[in-house]
């Protein structure tokens, strides 16, 4: 496929424009945004296509030194815990949510890590309300653990992040308020009067 199309720019675009478009897309499909998400692999493929398109254009333009996006290490270290929890983490990583959920339900001790993992399972399942509650419980039980706190903050931030375009729009638009319309009419009337007519009699 046409690398310019993938980046959504014209073939006549300047290098700077291409770089901006590339950065915008790389941010949009950044692995961090989709980590642990069911669509992670698809977002990864999309990012790969974007990287390749950018590299191709760079090479075509013979400027060398393709800008390559660093995705950063995925996975991350496990916080300590029993072997059982490691197994559950593996099941979640494999995408086997049913098994992970069954293993969690079989455990009687509900530690902070249990709540965190339960939250992860619910999050992948699309049951966000329960997921957030479990993350909150996990953070409450173990406030020093950054993994739990991160999960809790991330879900809240994602929800808060939605609608920025909508709220930003409201702040930016001067728009056609009632005052503007009145002012516009007054101006129109003045023009009219100059030309010998009058659309608002009283002024």
């Amino acid at each position, binding site marked *: 496929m046409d690398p310019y199309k993938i980046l959504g720019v014209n073939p006549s675009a300047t290098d700077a424009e291409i770089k901006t478009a590339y950065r915008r897309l790389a941010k949009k499909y950044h692995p961090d945004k*989709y980590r642990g998400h069911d*669509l992670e692999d698809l977002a990864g493929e999309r990012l790969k296509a974007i990287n390749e398109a950018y590299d191709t254009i760079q090479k075509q333009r013979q400027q060398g030194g393709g800008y390559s996006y660093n995705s950063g290490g995925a996975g991350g270290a496990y916080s300590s815990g029993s072997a059982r929890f490691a197994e559950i983490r593996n099941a979640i990583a494999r995408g086997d949510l049913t098994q992970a959920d069954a293993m969690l339900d079989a455990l009687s001790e509900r530690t902070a890590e249990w709540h965190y993992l339960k939250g992860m399972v619910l999050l992948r399942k*699309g049951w*966000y309300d329960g997921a957030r509650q479990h993350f909150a419980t996990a953070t409450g039980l173990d406030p020093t653990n950054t993994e739990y706190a991160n999960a809790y903050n991330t*879900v809240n931030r994602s*929800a808060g992040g*939605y609608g920025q*375009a909508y709220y930003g*729009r409201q702040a930016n638009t001067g728009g056609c308020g009632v005052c503007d319309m009145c002012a516009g009419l007054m101006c129109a009337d003045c023009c009219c009067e100059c030309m010998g007519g009058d659309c608002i009699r009283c002024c």
Partner: protein
Amino acid sequence: MFGYIQPLKPELKIKEYEAYKGYYCGLCKSIKENYTNTARFMLNYDCAVLYILLSSMSDADPVVASERCFVSPFKKKTVVRCDEASYAAAVNVLLVCAKINDNVRDENSLSAKALALFYGRVNRRAGNGNVKLAEEIKQRLENLFALESERCDDIDRAADEFANILAAVFSMAPFKFINAAAKKTLWHFGYNLGRWVYIADAVSDIEKDIKKNNYNVFVQRFSGGAKKVKDAAKEEAEFNLKFSLSQACKAYELLDIKRDKPLLDNIMYLGLAKKTEDVLKGETDGSV
């Protein structure tokens, strides 16, 4: 349940608004041609969005015509005619008939029963063309009814059934351009959008459901009068609505949209955000 998924009109360009209306008319005409003239009264905005999204993923160019209809007998209107219209029409009929049958069960009123009888044949015809989808919708509604009977107070469980209906609607669309990756993405898109619709509808209906003593997950969860339930539910509702939309947008951004992207962007980032705000402020009084 209907009418929640719409663009924010003041932010549309005239050409985008024209296209939107064209798709809407195209869906209406398709309902008439595939079903009956009277089935056109079922037409809803949400299925127009399904039509726009599916058709924007197709490689084929849309056929735009200028036609008259009984709502506008003198002035010809733009009508977008694409292959995806007939699927959107079938979904429209199936979902509205499901809602009518649900009303029969909830209210058991004569008018609801008459309507169900009246539309029985079109419903069966739409189901015959989409057997798997019709079965999925039926099964999910059965599950939802069981949850309502046990007065479920778990938002996730209640929303899951309706979310699965929209997931099926989007992912089971029978088109060649939907490959395995697109199918998976559409499933997520539909699931999160459906989850949002269910929760938005539940929040809007709190007052009405208390009055009529109907099931509402928020009323089960928080006790007290309408005002008290609304205030108590607000924070949780806001999180769930916005998080679901943020996930739906993630899936949307992975879809291969070939046409009408500004219109779809408007719906996803502005229209749904506005509706969310209205629902949370209590400015929607519950739709049909």
